[in-house]
């Protein structure tokens, strides 16, 4: 994702609509991209006029905006539109902690996230007024996608005028190869930790070598813990405004029963999340 040209936003006529639209327009302007809205449901005048009113109230768009009205299953329609329209980024408004009543919306958003062909931005707190993005956390997993994800994170930081970027290297506990049980193994574990940390930092440095990040303060933080979980908790503790993650490789039914990586984040969004594909 070197440049974001086309954004897609799902439109539901819920109380969140205004905030969602405002946020989408703002993001589109930041990336200088055009915006596509898709509504799953019938098209009627009431809806059109409501949408128009909101658009007038929001910032003026730099590029064009068009709405697609289509009936069908929400997941299928949105996924289809992503492919048909060559969308670069899909924006979904999520509910921060889905309680049982709102789970329906949440499960659709999850399904789309899992299957989307493009990058997905999950907003937990779309707001009418602009909230400045101050801190972005991005994963630095040892994965072929990571380089691209970090690149995107830098691109987004620049677009959002965010100055602070933390790259979190989540390291599996098993990689230590030492199980702490007494003083000796503890010492060995800590030496191993330092070594792995240096290795990981070097790996990230290599990725950053050919990325221009002059306007950014970049910090690396290594965490030993459960993959996918730790970064979410970290983002929450550090009150990051955006969490950038790799898209999962492939998720089967087992992955949902035994959640890992992205599923942890999806089950409890710590903040806004951008999943880079």
């Amino acid at each position: 994702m070197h440049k974001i040209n086309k954004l897609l936003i799902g439109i539901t006529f819920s109380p969140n609509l205004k905030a969602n639209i405002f946020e989408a327009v703002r993001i589109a302007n930041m990336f200088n991209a055009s915006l596509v809205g898709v509504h799953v449901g019938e098209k009627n005048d009431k809806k059109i006029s409501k949408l128009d009113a909101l658009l007038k109230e929001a910032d003026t768009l730099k590029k064009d905006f068009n709405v697609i009205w289509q009936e069908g299953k929400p997941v299928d329609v949105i996924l289809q539109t992503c492919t048909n329209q060559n969308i670069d980024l899909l924006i979904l408004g999520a509910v921060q902690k889905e309680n049982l009543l709102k789970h329906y919306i949440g499960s659709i958003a999850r399904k789309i996230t899992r299957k989307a062909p493009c990058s997905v931005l999950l907003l937990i707190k779309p707001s009418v007024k602009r909230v400045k993005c101050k801190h972005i956390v991005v994963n630095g997993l040892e994965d072929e996608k990571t380089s691209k994800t970090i690149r995107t994170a830098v691109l987004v930081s620049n677009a959002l005028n965010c100055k602070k970027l933390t790259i979190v290297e989540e390291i599996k506990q098993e990689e230590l190869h030492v199980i702490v049980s007494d003083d000796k193994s503890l010492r060995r574990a800590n030496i191993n930790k330092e070594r792995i940390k240096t290795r990981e930092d070097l790996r990230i440095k290599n990725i950053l070598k050919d990325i221009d990040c002059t306007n950014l303060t970049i910090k690396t933080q290594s965490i030993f813990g459960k993959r996918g979980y730790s970064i979410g908790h970290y983002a929450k503790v550090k009150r990051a405004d955006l969490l950038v993650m790799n898209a999962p490789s492939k998720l089967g039914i087992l992955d949902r029963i035994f959640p890992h990586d992205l599923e942890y984040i999806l089950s409890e969004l710590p903040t806004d999340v951008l999943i880079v594909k």
Partner: protein
Amino acid sequence: MKKKSTFKIFVSEIPNNLFAGFVVSLIALPLALGLALASGAPPISGVIAAIVGGTVVSLIGGSNVTITGPGNGLVVVILAAITTLGNGDMHQGFLYTLAAIVISGVLLIILGFLRMGSLGDFFPSSAIQGMLAAIGIGIFAKQIHVMFGNTAAKGSIIELLIKIPEGFINFITTTNSSMFYAGLVGFVSLLIMIFYSKIRNRYFQLIPAPMWIVVLSVGLYYYFDLFSTASYPIDKALLINLPDDILSNFAFPDFGKVYEISFLNAVIGITLIASIESLLSIKAVDKLDPLKRRSNINKDIKALGLATVISGFLGGLNVVTVIARSSVNVNNKGSNKSANFFHAAFLLAFILLFATELRKIPLPALAAILVFTGYKLASPENLVKVFRVGREQLIIFLITLLITISTSLITGILTGIFVTFIAHIIINKNARLFFKNALKPNVLMFKEDGKYYVSVQNFSSFLNYTKLKSKLNQIPEKEEVIVDFSLCDFVDHSVMENMNNYAQTFARKGGHFEVIGLDDSKSVSEHPFALRKLLHIKANSFQNVLTKRQKSIEKISTEMHWTYNAFSAQEMKELPTFGYFKKREISKVSNVLSNEDCSIFDVQFSEGELIAKQVIKATMLHIHPQKEVPDFTLDKEGLFEYILHFTGYKDINIEKHPDFNQRFYLAGKSEEKIRAFFTDELILFFESNQHYHISATENGILIFGNERLASVKEMKALAYFGMSLQKII
């Protein structure tokens, strides 16, 4: 090189350990005999367990100063196993039980390999307390009758308890002189146990109380034998029975009942108690270790398992780590594994050399030792202690205790776990919190600025304590740790108790362990280990109980001659005038620590509204300067981005200080005034001290580090920073 030196140390410590092992063996001998008798097993089986345990665990175990042998906790389980498996035939029951012991040893080895040795961590601490008290009552109820010379008393624990007054009257009025004298020996032995610690005579204290009992009762026999004309009044049936040829008469386990449910029950019970008792003891002994070593629990459990298997095949009881004997070991300067080995060697020597003398010990004398142990386990003091922690802990404790006494150990502990869980749900009025999050990971640990920061979310109780524990165990005890519970809705008593244990261990080894994020929580009692529930209410009306952090702050406030108010309802009028709080709503200021011009406080504020609302708690320092200060903000370059509020102001460069300019971001309204304000001295001060975010207005200076609550240590640093800054200005 290093190897040689450790070997040299080992050799140089041998005399000390030899002595410690000797003293321990003096206690271990009567205890081993007594515990075996109380379990309904032949007395020699206890000694076999101690000898095998001492040898095997000292050779391959993972702990340093522990002593192993037959344990108190097992008395009740083994007695139950022997009675149920034997159907009245105690000898046959013992052979079946030996098979159960062997299999439980195998289970322990497996648990050790699976690194599940710490079974005890899954049990709430009040339930374990209740179970131990029940074991104590069990031992007490049975042995008090033996102590009065009546070995025939039978029945359930409750029946035996009811029979105690009757037994006492029987003892006084009996015409059977053998029974009366035996009871008298028992009674005197009990007095020795009780008053031993009160007699502060160096020579008297050289021999431990149980050994005094043995020595005196054997002495009594020889008095009658050699000097008195009367014959020894105590019947042979009331004396200890050891096989004639100790080395050849081993009982061999009978595996005939392996497929029966009652056998399985016995195996589970024995394994469970062995694991819990050993673990509790190992942990407790680690706290006593003068060299502050950390035991390898799983390695120790494996060794205990192997020792149990061998002991079982030789006709011995199972082997656990025992706290009382281990503390005696430490007190007598035992410093490495060899003490345990020597203890076993001395026991072997005793049993081979003094078998004839040992046969003269009356059973009531040994029973008295056990009555005392049982009383200690179930003493009313424990009840008071538990009650202080909270009413709900007392309920858990009592239910576990009663169920254990009236049914079996396994039912008891399972009920205890269940009751604890229900109590947690009732206290929180929320079951979903537990069901939704019990299996999810909830602990984050990372190292930042040389400190370990551990954050726990959702809830933290005995259900998921292992997750927190496995993280904390990876931190060397010399480091500084901050455990933050502010994302936790509920923290239970077991976790609070364990946190306190960690704090002690870290303090002992030169590190620092601090718990934060509980200051806003409601506690059920004034006890430091009481469970805590986080309140989401803004109100300040309830009377809080100070957390440990608040108490430490109180302490440093008196050290520094500052005043401290934990629940200040005082509004900080100046705060909202700072740029930082322009877009943040302050909801509460608490833990105010202040002197005339400075105050440090925890402030709770929110960012954003409605669903975007985030509640943040941070510690800040506010200074009222004596002279006027220009508006400015000072930050470490690129670290903080609060400059947003000063948009339009550029980074002000102070001449002749390129280093300062490079490292700090300074902005403000009036450049001239700021330049005049930043004297060389002040710049040097900022350069040489820790970096904080500083913002100043005419109302004072606001200083803070991270946007989170500070640990007490960090608060102190902040206070000194503020005071020095004040001086310079």
